[in-house]
């Protein structure tokens, strides 16, 4: 974990009224898909840090998934802390990747696309909205088709708000108690105000081993470890 100061290079309209952005990647900041940064703008008198997820990682810059605070403009000085949390684990021998954005946009899943394509994976994105600039190799499907994913893919990456966990098994076409037959990981989206500083409990996620904190034990969890009922 490192701390760095950067300036917001640009804000980007990501469609559907969502606003993302771009920052320079600080030296030694090895952010992985699904990990996050805690950011604050000292000049704006923030009270809580803002959680920033990447939507694209190209080495020199980090494209930030929406939303960003409305007060952040190009040139806004930001204090960053990260990388924080546990990210996705793309299987090195995986052949077919399914990405699913449930009740949210797909931007936090997009950093998985480049490494998946680099290892020759086929990719299906189940999403309620189509992000701009998607590589043509990515097949876009409606979220309603998600029950097809477990039979096709060998790795499934999901992004879902914590409030969506109770219905997740049914949306995957699984019966109560049934575990998908593929490796599935879930980014559980929850407010993470302390960003792993305090175990404050706001981001608590119920797992089969008890309560865990999305900010430090996640936000990406192995689906089989989550208490979904």
């Amino acid at each position, binding site marked *: 974990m490192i701390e760095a100061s950067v300036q917001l290079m640009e804000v980007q309209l990501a469609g559907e009224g969502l606003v993302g952005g771009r920052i320079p990647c600080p030296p030694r900041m090895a952010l992985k898909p699904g990990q996050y940064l*805690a950011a*604050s703008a*000292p000049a704006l*008198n*923030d*009270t*809580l*840090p803002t959680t920033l997820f990447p939507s694209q990682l190209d080495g020199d810059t980090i494209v930030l998934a929406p939303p960003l605070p409305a007060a952040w403009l190009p040139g806004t000085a930001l*204090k960053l802390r990260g990388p924080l949390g546990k990210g996705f684990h793309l299987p090195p021998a995986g052949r077919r990747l399914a990405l699913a954005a449930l009740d949210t946009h797909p931007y936090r899943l997009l950093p998985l696309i480049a490494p998946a394509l680099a290892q020759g994976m086929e990719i299906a994105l189940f999403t309620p909205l189509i992000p701009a600039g998607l590589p043509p190799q990515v097949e876009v499907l409606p979220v309603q088709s998600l029950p097809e994913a477990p039979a096709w893919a060998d790795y499934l990456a999901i992004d879902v708000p914590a409030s969506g966990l109770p219905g997740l098994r049914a949306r995957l076409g699984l019966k109560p108690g049934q575990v998908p037959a593929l490796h599935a990981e879930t980014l559980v989206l929850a*407010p993470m*105000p*302390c*960003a792993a*500083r*305090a*175990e*404050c*409990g*706001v981001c*608590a996620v119920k797992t089969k081993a008890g*309560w865990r904190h999305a900010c430090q034990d996640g936000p990406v969890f192995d689906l089989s470890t989550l208490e979904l009922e």
Partner: protein
Amino acid sequence: MNARLDLDLESPWMNAAGTLGFTPPERWDWPHPAGAWVTDPISLSPRSPADNRAALSFPGGALVHSGLPNPGLNAVLRRHAEAWARSPLPAWPHIFGRSPEEIHGMVLRLEEVEGVAAIELGIDDDCPAEEALVQVDAALGELPLAVSVPLARAGEPWLERLSRMGASALVLSARRGTLPDNEGRLVSGRLYGPALFPQVLVAVHALSQSLRLPIIAGAGVYRPQDGEALLKAGAWGIQLDTVLWL
């Protein structure tokens, strides 16, 4: 003021309960050194998070509601007591309880733990004054006792009795408030942010004139000069809250 001698701080700055977890901080991002560190709130039994937990911003601050989840005193000590003993910073476990018996038992247990320099007892917003005094009495033991009350209760007459009872300090902590969440449901929780600074300053100024007890200002400090103003106004210590998360 004998009570002041009970507590020994090399620096008046520390964190507020709930802001740095259960282990001593590895780093302290503030221009002034820390004189102690306060644990997250600890109950006797494990406590689950609230169903409607939230973090909501408003102009001048934020509301945080978690339900004070914690693994219970035994688990906290099993996991963290060694770190408390090793830490160069004195530990102030923040405890809260449902009954005086529960609180007394927790205090007796903590008196045996190396590195614990004081107990901080949390009194919630809804606790009637007489019940609060019973809880304070139950928490008085060998260790100095800091009684933490929400800023909104700073003017209540029962606080005058704390010094005579033997409490060592009064902590003015974050007050509660209510905000609508993204779906319009009302959520109540602790308020943090610079908007609370004028409230804590006026309370410290008034209580330092009337209360024979060291006062620790535990809300609204987001800049060093705010804390320095509180010290000048009569505060004995300063607790920092979500500014330590930035």
